[in-house]
């Protein structure tokens, strides 16, 4: 019987059909998915903070509205993704607890500080751009609810990326001070953006099984290369450079060659040593704890007024 189920599962996945919540699935698949989707959801929620940092100071009312709407979208993305984990039997409260106790990760990029308003644009362009490279393939991921959430999210992310790029174009047409601000921001975000694709394939665990299960569709290095190829012409159009002396077109490969990010820094930040790790988690923990009495009150009110089940015919 179990073999039968497993065979059916594997055939479904190989046929590029979707696994749906009540289908039988291997435990490993379920666990890996919960971990991956939760990490993605946490990233959206923690990702509200670095950009949210500039809402109160946005330099025009139009930019303030755009930024607030964007950060709000991220809350929505987190919500869609937590919902997807709940179809697998996870619980948002439990996942939140794991996040604020540091037992589950989120994308390390959000442990970098946003120091100027140009960072809002560069995050849109490069960080959301990298996220899109990572996420577009997930619209075809084998788990149905995850794939559907990703379709919705990718649509919105592409808009985020465009607004980021548009902000930078506007700033580049402004004063010299603004242009310097943009270049400075690109210098700080380029390498961390490349690190968003994860460690080189040679060092990456999990990849093989996840590819077979179609919950990951391309390797880290493939996606990183794709991102570099996309970004270079965009940087040229913008009039900024990337801080990588090794970056150049390779005629033979038909791709850009580029240098290697500082993986020591990557691991240091992943392990909690980034400028903002503690602050980000503490912020989320405080919001969750400060809100406990509100959630409790609403639950208590609902319990008092719940229609009695016994009376129902």
């Amino acid at each position, binding site marked *: 019987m179990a073999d039968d*189920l497993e065979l059916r599962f594997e055939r479904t996945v190989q046929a590029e059909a979707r696994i749906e919540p009540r289908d039988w699935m291997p435990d490993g698949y379920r666990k890996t998915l919960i971990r991956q989707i939760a990490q993605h959801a946490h990233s959206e929620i923690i990702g509200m903070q670095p950009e949210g940092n500039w809402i109160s100071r946005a330099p025009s009312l139009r930019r303030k509205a755009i930024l607030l709407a964007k950060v709000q979208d991220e809350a929505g993305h987190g919500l869609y993704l937590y919902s997807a984990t709940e179809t697998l039997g996870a619980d948002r409260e439990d996942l939140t607890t794991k996040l604020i106790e540091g037992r589950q990760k989120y994308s390390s990029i959000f442990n970098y500080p946003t120091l100027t308003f140009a960072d809002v644009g560069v995050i849109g362009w490069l960080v959301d751009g990298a996220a899109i490279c990572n996420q577009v393939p997930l619209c075809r991921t084998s788990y149905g609810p995850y794939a559907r*959430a990703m379709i919705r999210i990718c649509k919105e992310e592409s808009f985020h990326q465009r607004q980021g790029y548009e902000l930078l174009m506007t700033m580049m047409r402004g004063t010299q001070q603004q242009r310097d601000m943009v270049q400075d921001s690109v210098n700080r975000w380029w390498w961390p953006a490349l690190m968003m694709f994860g460690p080189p394939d040679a060092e990456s665990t999990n990849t093989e099984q996840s590819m077979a299960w179609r919950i990951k569709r391309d390797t880290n290095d493939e996606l990183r290369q794709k991102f570099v190829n996309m970004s270079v012409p965009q940087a040229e159009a913008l009039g900024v450079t990337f801080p990588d002396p090794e970056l150049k077109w390779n005629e033979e490969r038909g791709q850009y060659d580029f240098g290697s990010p500082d993986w020591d820094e990557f691991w240091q930040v992943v392990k909690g040593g980034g400028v903002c790790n503690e602050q980000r988690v503490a912020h989320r923990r405080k919001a969750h704890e400060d809100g406990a009495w509100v959630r409790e009150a609403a639950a208590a009110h609902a319990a008092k007024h*719940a229609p009695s089940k016994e009376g129902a015919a």
Partner: protein
Amino acid sequence: MSTTWPLWEVFVRGKRGLNHVHVGSLHAPDAEMALRNARDVYTRRNEGVSIWVVPATEITASSPDEKDPFFAPSGDKVYRHPTFYAIPEDVPHL
């Protein structure tokens, strides 16, 4: 007492003439708040749409996969299976 709000499934009818379609889920303390949250989260407060919210625990579902062990103990409703009904072989076209 649990402070976790229950999960609600959200169904939206984008415009008149269409069916409600499942769009996702959310947490809310009660039905009224679930409706309001659904409007914020899934419809961008588009006034023209109709929303249903259903407690996730109140949904009874069939399995798309007959081999689903979830249903194995009680079996599905056998009377829905054609072989449940013994039909004399000489009855045509059944």
